[in-house]
């Protein structure tokens, strides 16, 4: 189990690098595969709660280090003119909480996953991703003001969740391979086989 979790952390770090090379699809409302969050949620389905919490913490930390825009050197006179404060960034660490929520969601159907119904978990990754992006957008709207929700936003969220979900079987396959290598049992079936 220990080696499996260490391998998951390695996979998470690898996904950080691969994520840099996954460009948005312009014709699809800038949708892209969110690989790092996908690795986190898929891993959450294969680990116990303690392991899931560690992964979501690490994943959220790395995701925010990559995603959060901290603007330096703004024109202070501009804000004096308009009586506005500089545009707010999201608080560093918010993704840790959102990832943990997605992790708990995935663990909700972990018994089904362990019975071998991995496709249900794969579909749930799509739901989790769309929820994550919706909450993130709502938080961003709350922090920055200007609740500008259009069909384009829905399309971006929906298509991003869809293409991320389509990549989830591949991630689950990789996780099963890692589990085999580390002799880690992530399904009831294999436990049953071992018992008999």
């Amino acid at each position, binding site marked *: 189990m220990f080696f499996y979790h260490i391998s998951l952390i390695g996979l998470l770090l690898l996904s950080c690098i691969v994520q840099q*090379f996954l460009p948005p699809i312009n014709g699809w409302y800038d949708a892209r595969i969110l690989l790092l969050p996908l690795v986190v949620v898929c891993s959450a389905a294969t680990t116990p*709660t*303690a392991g899931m*919490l560690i992964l979501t913490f690490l994943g959220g930390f790395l995701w925010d*280090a990559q995603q959060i825009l*901290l603007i330096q050197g703004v024109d202070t006179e501009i804000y004096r003119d308009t009586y506005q404060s500089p545009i707010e960034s999201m608080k560093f660490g918010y993704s840790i909480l959102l990832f943990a929520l997605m992790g708990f969601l995935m663990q909700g159907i972990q018994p089904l996953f362990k019975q071998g119904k991995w496709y249900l978990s794969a579909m749930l990754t799509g739901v989790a991703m769309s929820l994550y992006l919706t909450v993130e957008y709502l938080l961003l709207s709350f922090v920055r003001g200007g609740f500008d929700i259009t069909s*384009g936003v829905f399309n971006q969220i929906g298509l991003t969740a869809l293409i991320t979900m389509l990549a989830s079987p591949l991630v689950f396959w990789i996780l099963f391979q890692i589990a085999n290598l580390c002799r880690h049992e992530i399904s009831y079936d294999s436990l049953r086989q071992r018992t008999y």
Partner: protein
Amino acid sequence: MRPLNFIALLLFIAGTVWVFTRSEKAVRKVQENYYSTISPFVSKGGEIDAFATSFMEEVEHSEVLQKRLEQATRERDRFKLIGIRISELESENNELRNALDFKKKTEFDVISAQIVRREPLTWGSTVEISRGDSDHIGVSLCVLASNGGLVGQVYQPGDDVSSVLLITDEASRVSVRVEGSAEVGILSGRRTNYGETPRLRLRYLSKNAVLQKGMKVYTNGRGGLFPANIPVGTIEDFEAGPVTGEAEIIPSVDFNNLKTVFVITNSPGD
């Protein structure tokens, strides 16, 4: 609840509280470390990506030629190939000439840089350029395109590459003026900018402003971050609100085909 889960939950909460209470400076340090750690992998991957792209283009190019070969003689196609190559070289030459001309003509001291990639942000518009600390690129330096239009500002310089916040990003703020009028306003990007041409928002104009489509918008130099008189875009539409007016701007820079940019290292006033 199992004791192990309870301990993990407590550690998770403690860790999250610790992360939430980090100062902006500490977060910036974390991000610097993050990007400096992954940058060797990114630059190596970038080389592989460029090779793969070039290979794919070559394959695509070959397929087109194959179709033409079926329809025409070998000799004619050879000339066609030469023609295509010359046209590519001419286009590349023109691009480089424009870049060189811009560098010669501009009144600013500039450093040219290539756009390495668009950064993977879900709700942001940033790009990575091929210059960093080693080329004296610092925070807040103004970035222009080869047509002289405003691209954005450097917000995170790294050792060899830097991140540039584009004016199409919602967090970008530029003080501008409208040519042929006394109107000044604040230009910003949009949270979501889909389609071929991104649009910008010009706010805090007077509600009675007489603005027409096609009027040019320039930086006014207020605040000192962006030098004055840099072209930003043209007015597409104007809408008067109860207190202020707001205009939609088409940027003067074609962000979809932007390859080379220029970072102003110091303006004539410096």
